[in-house]
């Protein structure tokens, strides 16, 4: 199982909002256990889709120098079952962003059908965070690879409409890189 719970961004506006999609397919192992006999996309992974879509939106505000982690799922409510062959569309929006973290609201739809709504709080770990024990989460190359896979620089724009460019971000160095 890979830990990629959005497939691609279709929209990404720096500091504001983003839209990403995820296809649900029988090729995914976990659907054969959840539930065995009747595949249903687990709602915990729907939360993760929103967290990834929103987390990168927040990280971009910190120039992708660091990743944020999900500190709190304030509320998530689910209204249906998402089945194999369906595509989830995640819409996430930054509600508030500060130096120590951010609040993101999100929805998940299958076509016009609202499947889920959630509010997530991200914590920014920073260099001095004890829990990290001086380690970083991600080598910058991994982050650059992930951003490329999900098409951030293919659709991403700043709020004035100008395209986001990979070279504008320090993706070859990282805030938590050991000196």
């Amino acid at each position, binding site marked *: 199982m890979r830990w990629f719970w959005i497939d691609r961004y279709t929209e990404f506006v720096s500091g504001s909002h983003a839209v990403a999609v995820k296809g649900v397919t029988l090729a995914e192992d976990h659907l054969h256990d959840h539930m065995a006999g009747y595949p249903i996309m687990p709602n915990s992974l729907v939360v993760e889709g929103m967290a990834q879509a929103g987390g990168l939106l927040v990280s971009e505000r910190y120039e992708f120098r660091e990743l944020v982690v999900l500190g*709190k799922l*304030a*509320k998530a409510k689910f209204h249906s079952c998402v089945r194999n062959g369906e595509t989830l569309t995640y819409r996430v929006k930054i*509600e508030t962003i500060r130096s120590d973290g951010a609040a993101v609201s999100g929805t998940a739809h299958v076509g016009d059908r609202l499947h889920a709504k959630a509010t997530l*709080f991200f*914590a920014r770990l920073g260099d001095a965070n004890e829990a990290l024990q001086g380690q970083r989460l991600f080598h910058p190359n991994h982050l650059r690879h992930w951003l490329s896979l999900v098409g951030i620089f293919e659709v991403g724009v700043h709020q004035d409409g100008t395209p986001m460019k990979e070279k504008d971000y320090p993706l070859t160095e990282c805030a938590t890189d050991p000196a």
Partner: protein
Amino acid sequence: MASEDEIFEKVREALVEALGVDDDEVTPEATLQGDLDAESIDFLDIVFRLEKSFDIKIERGELFPEDILTNVEYVEDGKVNDSGIAKLRERMPFADLTKFEAEPSVQNLGQQLTVKDMCNFVAFKLAA
């Protein structure tokens, strides 16, 4: 302008939702960190809800002045000194700091902040 009761109701709702506690656990004397188990990530959530509920803007450090508590000018040996306490009184006119002043260790401030202090903070912001 909202009455004391209205403020308490909305603050209680925010705390119940944010902290997953029951209505009756949120009394005016309940301490946020001690009795209600609030942690720093919860404060982000609580502030967000209060901003929406009361249509106010709360800057980082306004409700809880971490900058004073981490400033070497105001903290000696893990305790807030006299000029630090004066600064806190200035920044937190909504809070009852008497207990804290008797034993001003840095970690005590957070632990003593009560629901009543939070309501007073909201009233203070609404009046401003």
